């Protein structure tokens, strides 16, 4: 069940590997101008949470999730009354595929928390950073998601 531990790379290497992909994703969603602020915010969030990581697997999924959440937060700030229907997309990876059919009807934040915790095995502090909230909020979102899934299974 446990994957072999992958050493956490020095942040520079992680950043150099993912910066262009993160920037392209943000530019596609928000336009180049606004993508610049979101780019900086994405990697600052990643840097804040970096010491909480326990292994170096799924770092790409993690940082892309942070980027999507930063984009969602920016849209919410601009249009606070509009409910975002679009679920937070996660990279298609085998670990995710196992959970995808179970989680695709969860609210976006709960879904991201459940998938990052149970499919990607990330610690709550790192998930909190990805969701732009705290470790506690990430733990609550994941357990709310799991409760919702359980209720659904029993009905």
């Amino acid at each position, binding site marked *: 069940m446990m994957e072999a531990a992958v050493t*956490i*790379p*020095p*942040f*520079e*290497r992680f*950043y150099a590997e993912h*910066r*262009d992909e993160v*920037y*392209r994703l943000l*530019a596609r969603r928000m336009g*180049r101008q606004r993508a*610049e602020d979101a*780019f*900086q915010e994405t*990697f*600052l969030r990643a*840097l*804040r949470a*970096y*010491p909480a*990581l326990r292994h170096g697997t799924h770092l790409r999924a993690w940082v892309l999730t942070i980027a999507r959440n930063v984009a969602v937060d920016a849209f919410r700030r601009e249009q606070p009354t509009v409910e975002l229907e679009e679920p937070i997309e996660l990279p298609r990876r085998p670990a995710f595929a196992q959970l995808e059919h179970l989680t695709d009807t969860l609210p976006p934040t709960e879904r991201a928390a459940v998938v990052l915790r149970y499919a990607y095995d990330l610690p709550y502090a790192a998930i909190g950073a990805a969701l732009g909230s705290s470790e506690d909020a990430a733990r609550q979102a994941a357990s709310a998601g799991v409760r919702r899934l359980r209720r659904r299974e029993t009905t």
Partner: protein
Amino acid sequence: MNVSTDLDRRFREAADREGLVDVAYDLADSPVGELLVAVTGRGLCRIAYRPDDALDELAGDFGTRVLRVPRRVDRVRRELDEYFEGRRREFDLELDLTPVGAFHREALDELARVPYGEVTTYGALAAKVGHPKSARAIGGAMNRNPIPSVLPCHRVVGSNGKLVGYAGGLERKELLLKLEGALLDTLFP
């Protein structure tokens, strides 16, 4: 469509400003090849001849948030430039030697007292540290010197006057000694 140089620089400087960087580094040109120069909040912590390996070592020693932030090493870069141009004989820099063990630290402290343009021997340095029979251990300590050139392990030679060894390669050791005008031939005829 990639990250622009300007955006890249702004992120690095914001990260540094927010105090999120354990180790800031940059690469610097020098007559002994490209150097990686790294600082923490306490001071200069590493000069490395092999930048790639050094990144992993820095992450292990000081924390994984290792980031290239050129302006953080400006002062070290300036002093190194002056040294390599022959205009500086002593460095005026804070050092961070926190990961260094006690014996290693004593050896490096003693090493720092060897003056510009002079050489000493592994045995003599061992005696000064108070372990006269530990010339070999002193050799090991010099080999693992985290801040070569600023901590002048190139000024330590064998008792027969031979250069003996240098973690950065003997040609670098010779070049640094020549730069300082240390004339081995007259010291050890």
